[in-house]
């Protein structure tokens, strides 16, 4: 066995070189693979983070939109409710007014029944005298009723005397009669026309329209569903 190795010929040199090249290549590929793996993992982490971030954002936006839509919806419902309430109120008002105007029409026929009308006038006068509680009163009425009022006043004075024991001097004033719009009845005044009791039919109609509103409501529309106390 020779102690010194002979110098390598070309083929051997090439083969050695190729072996070294292959070795270096392999090492490089392995390191490259490690780097690639690390890069892939970082990419995955980063991607997951971004996805999570964005999905949170999208979720928030969605919630916000939902809330906005809810608010809009609620506003809409309340507006509609209000509107419908107003409509109901308006309809009721119209109905009420039609009732009043019907009543007024019916009122016009009251003075036509003379006997009854006379009775009524007497009662009205008595009531007025009682209210005024004065010795001297003036009685006014419609021009058309003058004759009737005269008779009624005479009877009323008598009745007044019976009921209260007081005497009253009632004068029918013809110079300033009440307009026809009062529909009938009398207006009695005392103390130089400074105090008066308006017992005209129109006035009484107005009074009762006002006073009877609760009963009217009950008759026309029934009790309110929310009502709790009835005494």
């Amino acid at each position, binding site marked *: 066995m020779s102690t010194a190795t002979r110098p390598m010929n070309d083929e051997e040199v090439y083969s050695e070189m190729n072996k070294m090249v292959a070795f270096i290549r392999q090492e490089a590929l392995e390191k490259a693979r*490690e780097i690639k793996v690390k890069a892939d993992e970082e990419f995955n982490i980063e991607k997951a983070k971004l996805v999570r971030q964005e999905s949170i954002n999208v979720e928030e936006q969605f919630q916000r939109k939902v809330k906005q839509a809810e608010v809009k919806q609620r506003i809409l419902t309340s507006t509609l409710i209000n509107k419908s309430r107003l409509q109901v109120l308006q309809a009721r008002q119209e109905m009420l007014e039609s009732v009043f105007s019907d009543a007024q029409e019916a009122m016009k026929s009251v003075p036509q029944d003379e006997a009854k009308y006379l009775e009524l006038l007497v009662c009205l006068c008595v009531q007025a005298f009682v209210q005024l509680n004065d010795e001297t009163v003036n009685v006014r009425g419609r021009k058309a009723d003058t004759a009737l009022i005269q008779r009624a006043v005479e009877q009323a004075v008598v009745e007044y005397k019976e009921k209260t024991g007081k005497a009253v001097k009632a004068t029918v004033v013809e110079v300033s009669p009440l307009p026809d719009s009062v529909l009938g009845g009398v207006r009695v005044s005392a103390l130089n026309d400074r105090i008066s009791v308006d017992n005209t039919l129109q006035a009484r109609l107005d009074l009762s329209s006002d006073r009877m509103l609760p009963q009217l409501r009950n008759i026309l529309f029934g009790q309110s569903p929310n009502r709790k106390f009835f005494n």
Partner: protein
Amino acid sequence: MTVPDVPAAMVNNQFFDEFTDKVRVKPIPWEGYSRAGLISGDDLRELKEYQQAAAAQANREGKDVAQYMGLLVRLTEKLSSIDALQYLLVQVDDIVEGGQGGGCGEQLQRVMFRCLEKKDDYLGLKASKILVGAISGSSSAAEAEQRGFAYARLFGYLERCMRSELTSVVDVAVQVMQSALRARRARTVLFGEESAQCLAQLIDVLRRTQQSLMQASGSAPRTRGVVAVPQTQYEVVFCLWLLSFERPIAAALDRRLDVIAITAEIARSAVKEKVVRIVVALWANLLRLAAPANVPAMLVARVPACLATLGAGRSFKDEDLRSDLKQLAEELAEHTGVMTTWDEYLNELASGKLAWSPAHRSEQFWKLHIRRMDEHDHRVVRQLADLLTEPTASETALAVACHDLSQYVRFNPDGKRLLARIGAKARVMALMTTSECPDVRYEALLCVQQIMLNAWRN
């Protein structure tokens, strides 16, 4: 000269490559098959066309390649002669490596899995390489395919290979695993129940490399199934490194397989830089993703000392390695902080590897810390008792655990009742009679003695 990209499935084994070259030039009787009716006349004609085209020019068009691939797969399905199959697989592998394989279709999978069943080693390994090459990759289509891929089956085959006597078969199998584990789903499957055997086999390969190192270098014949030891170590630790990228795996890996201890040994004795590099990378991952689970084990295996020697002794050429070393050393130092003997004891207990240390023997240690053993609902005592029942505990660990329990009872007489309650007393008595190791029996006997002493007092 263009820089080549890292191939998806990289296998570098001399035996394997030489075999491939031989197969490439082996003549296959295609006409014979055609006459026998195994392949159709059209197939034969197409094959001849491609072969001539390949001989004439190096590059092929994309569409042609896809068609050629389809042809090859069809032929693989039809034929069953080993020679022909080997040739076909070599051609398929060339295409897949060239990156034009077009993903892993169902037909390809089916055909390759069939090849795994055949008795020929080369055929099976080549088929597994093709499968991994086709399925790996980071495009989104690949991910969907990965979900449906039968990794468990592949790992079952590779496990069989790793048991083989032939060193090159083991080597190629490990290299195929390296490439397979690039896919995230593969890692979860490997760590799952189905492929637990495969993983255990992988670690076994690693252990064998250490054993072969222990034997006198050069004189003893190579241990079964180990190629060049550093290369195999690198490959297996690379697989572990890939596995450790998944958080749940990083937390459970050491518990199951004791990787930190083995890798510490390897790092201490490794000559090649890349082995150290990959081991340090593995530790960095374990620490980064699952510190509480792994710090105790690292401390018990004396990893910080190892890192210090590595950092001081050798100057490494690789920048990543240097920075990893520094970072790892700093992080471990942070975690350990100021460690008292008691903390060290807790660490040992957490890692499950009790060993005889002066602390265990000294009475002062026990007297000082006896109260602490009762903290948190007697957590330490319970841990010791659990260790006694764990099937994988080593004999030293059992002996030390018995000894510790006896010291506990000695300095805390009430402990007797606790031990009886949690069943440790029964276990110690069982160990006293049935254990094989004399040390364990001795320590268990002492422990029972302590329990019985003054038993009438309570």
